């Protein structure tokens, strides 16, 4: 792998940058692999990476229907955090945050990890109770939540001028989660792809899987694509939003439904807010990108949707919520908006398991799964390689539904 550094940048600069090698190859597609990973989004790429790095499996094909990094990893709001409420969830996200923090150096690719912290703006006593509850249980697992006063909150976010004593929902206080970070989503996808390629794995873009194939013994046997049949004894499905579309071709039903979630950005403006601001009572969150755009998200649309669009009602809800706390943004302009679809499990927690089809693995239900990418890949690789669930993901087995033994992260935020 060609090393990236300031020095190499200068050296290649002298050659007018004509000497940079491709970050990944386009190898010919073979008929058989040890493992097929469907989906070159965050979770698929991370899984392939850890299959090689942790388990020495190199005969891997990552199949991508479009372009690599073009799924939800291209559509999310890059919020990385671990402020969850359950013993089952927190250690997993703590691990994921830690893996993100070392990613730039581990993969020799600047993912622009910016550990800037997240501040929750609390406007109801119910939410205050919820956050206080998290504060103590997070501490058990090494994640941090500190309560701050309204004055401190306003000092940290000077642009937040709404929510005063006379407001409909006055600000009661805040919580800061210092580990929270943002980074560059494209860089994460590209960094993984480059590393996978360097270690011998293959990424095949424009290779949609149309059908999962089972053998006479019922096990997974491979996949069908327009480029031909590809065989593998193990297939991992990491195709947020389209999980059921694929698994149904293997005769499998899963407790998932596909929803659309919207995000939008403002015009780029000078540095204004240097933390992630999460306003669970109002119903939105935002952070400012290095380009200066405010990246804003809200609640998912009602109803199942594969349309990747914007529901005007939900969008207006999110904007008015934002203006209630940031009234100066009335004059700020929206530059771009988009939707992404994701699947949500029946209990709203992720599912990562081998399915009833032996050899077929799924990682799904990642509602807000960007923050889970590194740990989700680590744990899925462990499961695929060893056949045993990784301890961090054990509670998220699909078998939990057989006994309606849900993992419920109730009262979570819009940013979850």
């Amino acid at each position: 792998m060609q090393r990236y550094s300031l020095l190499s940048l200068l050296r290649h600069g002298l050659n007018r940058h004509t000497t940079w090698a491709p970050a990944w190859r386009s190898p010919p597609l073979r008929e058989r692999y040890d493992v097929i990973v469907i989906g070159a989004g965050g979770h698929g790429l991370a899984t392939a990476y850890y299959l090689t790095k942790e388990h020495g499996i190199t005969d891997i094909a990552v199949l991508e229907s479009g372009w690599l990094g073009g799924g939800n990893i291209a559509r999310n709001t890059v919020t990385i955090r671990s402020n969850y409420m359950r013993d089952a969830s927190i250690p997993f996200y703590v691990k994921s945050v830690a893996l993100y923090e070392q990613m730039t150096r581990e993969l020799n690719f600047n993912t622009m990890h910016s550990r800037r912290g997240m501040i929750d703006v609390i406007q109801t006593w119910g939410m205050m109770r919820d956050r206080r509850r998290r504060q103590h249980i997070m501490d058990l697992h090494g994640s941090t939540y500190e309560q701050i006063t309204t004055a401190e909150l306003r000092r940290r976010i000077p642009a937040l001028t709404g929510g005063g004593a006379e407001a409909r929902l006055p600000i009661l206080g805040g919580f800061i989660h210092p580990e929270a970070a943002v980074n560059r989503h494209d860089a994460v996808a590209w960094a993984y792809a480059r590393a996978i390629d360097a270690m011998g794995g293959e990424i095949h873009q424009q290779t949609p899987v149309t059908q999962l194939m089972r053998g006479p013994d019922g096990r997974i046997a491979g996949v069908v694509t327009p480029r031909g049949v590809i065989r593998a004894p193990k297939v991992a499905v990491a195709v947020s939003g389209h999980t059921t579309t694929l698994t149904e071709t293997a005769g499998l039903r899963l407790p998932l439904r596909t929803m659309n979630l919207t995000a939008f950005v403002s015009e780029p403006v000078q540095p204004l807010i240097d933390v992630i601001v999460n306003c669970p009572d109002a119903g939105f969150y935002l952070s400012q990108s290095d380009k200066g755009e405010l990246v804003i998200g809200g609640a998912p649309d009602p109803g199942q949707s594969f349309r990747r669009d914007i529901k005007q009602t939900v969008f207006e809800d999110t904007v008015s919520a934002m203006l209630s706390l940031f009234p100066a943004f009335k004059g700020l302009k929206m530059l771009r908006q988009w939707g992404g679809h994701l699947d949500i499990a029946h209990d709203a927690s992720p599912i990562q398991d081998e399915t009833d089809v032996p050899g077929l693995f799924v990682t799904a239900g990642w509602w807000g799964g960007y923050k889970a990418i590194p740990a989700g890949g680590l744990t899925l690789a462990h499961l695929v390689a060893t056949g045993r669930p990784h301890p961090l993901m054990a509670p998220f087995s699909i078998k939990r539904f057989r006994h309606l033994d849900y993992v419920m992260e109730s009262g979570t935020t819009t940013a979850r």
Partner: protein
Amino acid sequence: MMLIPCPFCGPRTESEFAYGGPVRPPRPDPATTAEADWVGWLTEVPNPLGPVEERWCHLRGCGSWLTLWRDTRTHAIVGGPQDAE
């Protein structure tokens, strides 16, 4: 924002409605239904890439619950499961 046909009020804008989820098969008889089937009925809702049957309530209108088929790829309201747009 969709235009939803209310059987009583005619076509009305989506913001007058509340979403009620996809239509599941009728509730099975607990006395005669195996546990796995009950769990399947409860947790595995239809999630088609195409028309889905679902419920909406004309909350800010006549209060009726109505059932319609909607294509999840386009939001087009269609006649039934075969009417993929």
